């Protein structure tokens, strides 16, 4: 029945506006046998997100969903079998709703959003579900990967670039002004901001409760993230070892952890959202991806953001809110330094970031968007915000959004 029948052969094609309708995520867990999701399947985590989205948006007839794009970095086992399709079936969406799996490592969910958004703009879809999942307990990073020996023999990629911690140390080398002390200070702030957001009730509304059962234990219900350490201090971080380099700067405290979790969002054409009575939380302005040297992959958000800003005809000063993924503190700081933004600037990661909440690789992109959407709602004075993240093997991705609550929304800037 959808998309709305448009004769794309004969009529003049028009790009359509794409809006972010709603986003949710599971509470994030710590990967490994001590984590809350040890014994839980990755696909089940996605399914719970999709079902909660459908319950939160009862005016959306499930048969109107034109695509389910779910990202996972490792696409085997419980993340295999074309997880977008399996998750749609397991969530009870009609068989007529198609789905696919997508991978761009850490930016998987972000790419699920941009790929389907592009198709909405093109007129191929009216409504989609896009999200991601990574159960890093079930799928340790890089497990089962078989890097081509030419990477080494032809020096296409520095071997150090395959280890994300090493790339973060490399970034410290490149930007000596970013010290361990700055990184730790940033990390402490991330923990504090998340704790404050929890107290203010800014995180909980978009969490899907998950019942999970660890081997040998009874069922439990998870309604909050497991990774945060709200009591973190500079002193406690100073004691942590630097596992990637002796006397290095990157620690477990100023990096995102290894995590399990899933996210999902509904996107729609502006017309379909209006037709179906769906809320518009953000309007998509532009998006871009860019590649950088793999051994300093953390710098990726800089060129991708410059591309996205240029496409939008905006300057960095037009951006009122930043949701930047915190794979490593150094990578956030390199971005902020590049654009001349103070590391304590209140526009940046108001609810804290991945250092505190966790980073289940392919799921994180939609978490950034869901949080930005809530901040838009809270702060109508902001017109534009961006979500950005660095990506393994040297990439960055950036999506710029407009706040529908802003007075000038819908008017040309």
């Amino acid at each position, binding site marked *: 029945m959808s998309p709305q029948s448009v004769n794309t052969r004969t009529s003049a094609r028009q790009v359509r506006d794409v809006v972010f309708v709603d986003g949710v995520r599971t509470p994030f867990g710590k990967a490994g046998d001590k984590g809350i999701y040890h014994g839980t399947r990755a696909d*089940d985590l996605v*399914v*719970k997100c999709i*079902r*909660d989205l459908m319950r939160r948006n009862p005016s959306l007839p499930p048969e109107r969903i034109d695509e389910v794009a779910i990202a996972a970095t490792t696409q085997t086992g419980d993340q295999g079998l074309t997880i977008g399709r399996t998750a749609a079936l*397991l*969530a*009870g969406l009609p068989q007529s709703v198609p789905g696919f799996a997508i991978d761009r490592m850490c930016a998987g969910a972000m790419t699920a959003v941009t790929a389907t958004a592009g198709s909405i703009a093109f007129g191929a879809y009216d409504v989609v579900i896009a999200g991601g999942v990574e159960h890093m307990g079930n799928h340790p990073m890089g497990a089962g990967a078989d890097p081509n020996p030419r990477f080494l023999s032809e020096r296409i990629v520095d071997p150090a670039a395959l280890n994300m911690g090493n790339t973060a140390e490399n970034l410290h080398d490149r930007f000596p002004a970013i010290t361990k002390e700055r990184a730790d200070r940033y990390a402490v702030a991330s923990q504090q901001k998340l704790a404050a957001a929890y107290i203010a009730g800014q995180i909980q509304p978009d969490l*899907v*409760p*998950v*019942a999970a*059962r660890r081997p*040998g*234990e*009874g*069922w*439990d*219900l998870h*309604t909050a993230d497991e990774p945060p350490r709200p009591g973190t201090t500079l002193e406690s971080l100073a004691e942590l070892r630097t596992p990637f380099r002796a006397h290095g700067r990157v620690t477990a405290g100023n990096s995102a952890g290894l995590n399990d979790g899933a996210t999902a969002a509904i996107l729609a054409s502006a017309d379909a959202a209006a037709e179906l009575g769906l809320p518009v939380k953000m309007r998509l302005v532009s998006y871009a991806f860019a590649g950088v040297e793999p051994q300093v992959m953390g710098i990726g958000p800089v060129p991708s953001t410059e591309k996205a800003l240029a496409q939008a005809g905006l300057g960095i000063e037009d951006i009122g809110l930043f949701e930047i993924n915190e794979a490593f503190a150094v990578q956030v700081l390199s971005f902020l330094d590049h654009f001349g933004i103070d590391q304590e600037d209140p526009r940046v990661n108001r609810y804290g970031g991945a250092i505190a909440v966790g980073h289940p690789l392919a799921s994180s992109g939609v978490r950034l968007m869901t949080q930005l959407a809530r901040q838009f709602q809270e702060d109508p004075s902001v017109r534009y915000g961006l979500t950005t993240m660095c990506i393994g093997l040297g990439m960055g991705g950036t999506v710029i959004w407009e706040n529908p609550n802003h007075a000038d929304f819908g008017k040309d800037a």
Partner: protein
Amino acid sequence: MSQGTIENFSALAAAIPNEIITHSLVTDVSLPGGKRLALLTLDNGLDHSKPTTLGPNTLIELHGVLTQQKARAAAGEIDALAVTGKPYFLVAGADLSGVKHLSSPEHGEAMATLGHAAYDLLADLGVPTFAFINGVALGGGLEIALACTYRTVSSGANGIGLPEAFIGLVPGWGGVYRLPRLTGPEAAMTVMIENPLNNNRSLNGVAAAKIGIADALFEPADFLERSLLWAGGVLDGSVEVARPHAVDPATDPEVAARWAAAATKARAFIEAKTSNAAPAPAKVIEAFEAGATISQAESAQLEIAALTELMQTNAFHNTVYAFLDLTQKRAKRPAGAPDAKLARPVTKIGVVGAGLMAGQLALLFAKNLKVPVVITDIDQARVEKGLAYIHGEVDKQLAKGRISPDAANRTKALVTGSATKDAFADADFVIEAVFEELAVKKQVFAEVEAVVSAECILATNTSSLSVTETGRDLKHPERLVGFHFFNPVALMPLLEIVRTEHTNEVAVATAFALGKALRKTSVLVKDEAAFVVNRILLRLMGEIANAFDQGTDPAVADNALRPMGLPMTPFTLLAMVGIPVAHHVSGSLNAVFGERFHVSKNQQVLIEHGIKSLWVPTADGGQEIPASTLELLEFGSNPSTADELLLRTQDALALEIGLMLAEGVVAGPEDIDLCMIMGAGWPMHMGGITPYLDQVGASERANGKKFHQK
């Protein structure tokens, strides 16, 4: 129950040393809204192939955990408690393989009391209790849920019910008292009487919610999350629990009348279904009726007394034997079956004959094996008729929605016909279903052997001829097996696989593999006349026919075996089998075994006059033997009483089965019992037949010893 009392159960626990304990694992859950709920997971730590069950150790642990939680509730530490299970199970019910070892009434009573002690805590914990029925909840498993204040159920749950009447017990851990109050008396009788006695049927989650067993229904994908949220809503008052089916017989005279009517209806059902041959169903109704006017505590005492009594009955022990040891275990690992790896792959099947039996076989093979099936007959017209029958049957199933259009197309396309046996050239298995005459079958196999490969398995569906004789002239008699189905082929679960002294392991293994793929219960039998089921049935029918011929009143003769609770009377069975067939086979057996198998002259007369049944229905709904029939028959002057005839038949069966075991027809009495349950629908409360014959003394009278030595 005090700690002192619970220690008294240690003797009970020791009586079941190998119990697989279902643990009670408690996690505190904070519900949205701030309430704290203790979530109790019942889990034996094993995967879904090992259902959680309730034995004494399990119940002692549950009792201990609930006692702690009651104290926490009193201290204000928890606002509610909920019980759920590991995936696919709330709890599958009492641990029957353990309970069957409780030989003393004291142990039985302790087990019954222990369940109440644990469940009473759920009913009176001081805070609301919830059961989240995520999967199988049978017997004591469902009664845990019924003891709770509220229940949710998963729409993906299967196997919800109170099957005690089938097993030989009563739902005596409160189910018989609590269920009718939730669902109304009529639905409760369906759950406690009709379903158990209808092949032990159970409910799914949707049905359970519909009749009022559960207060809310949630989909399986996030069943527990939704259940917990719902519980939170109930606790904070935002969710209202409606119970449209709930009743109170103590205060509502109309309900009391419905209660009595439901009991009357259920009694009639039991009478029709079991001839009241087993004690448990009537006990269920007694407890149900008594429960209408007394308190739950008073009912508990009656339930414990009933359970204690029934756990000592033969019917209970026979049912556990038949259900667990035979249908659950022996049926899955047939005695004497060769290594399954020896089986030849079967990729094409030939069926000789296009008559009714051949058509049923072809359809069964095509539907279950999904390989090409060729039917042949002596001319194209018969072949076309056979194919038309098969296509018609497929269309009927399609029209009923039992199969999809694609499956119907596939099955139809798999079955082809041919007027020549050349079509069997590449078949791996050819079965004949032609006229029951040795010369005809031998001729058929000679023609088949001329076409097929030397390895192709040959099978005969004979019910009365010697398989060995049928294969006498084969070049390769080692590939011949008997493959004896029961009518109607699609419904009757038994397959007798007949081995001759020539049959090799490959042929037998292939036959068992086919039987499994056809979803039949296969039993290996030796090539002795009439194999198992027909030999025993005809021996029984012969005893009754003989008594009738000698002048016993037909009603007395036909009802003499009522205490056995057989699915139909001998004369009804005779009419169903067909008098000519029964008479013919009796003659064959008489020729082989002698006068033990009575050949009735009166039956010959009936056949000659085309009379198909002794009984005919009367206008008032009864039945009679018409005077016109009786006039044709001749009777002796030596009538028997019902008691004499019952005793004589029991002894005859014991003798015949003793001879069969001595002849090595099957591996043991268990196979006889399995055959009679699966092939003739004989009741589990007799354990098939041999435990019953031991218990009534027939085995010792006939053979000087019991079939089963304890």
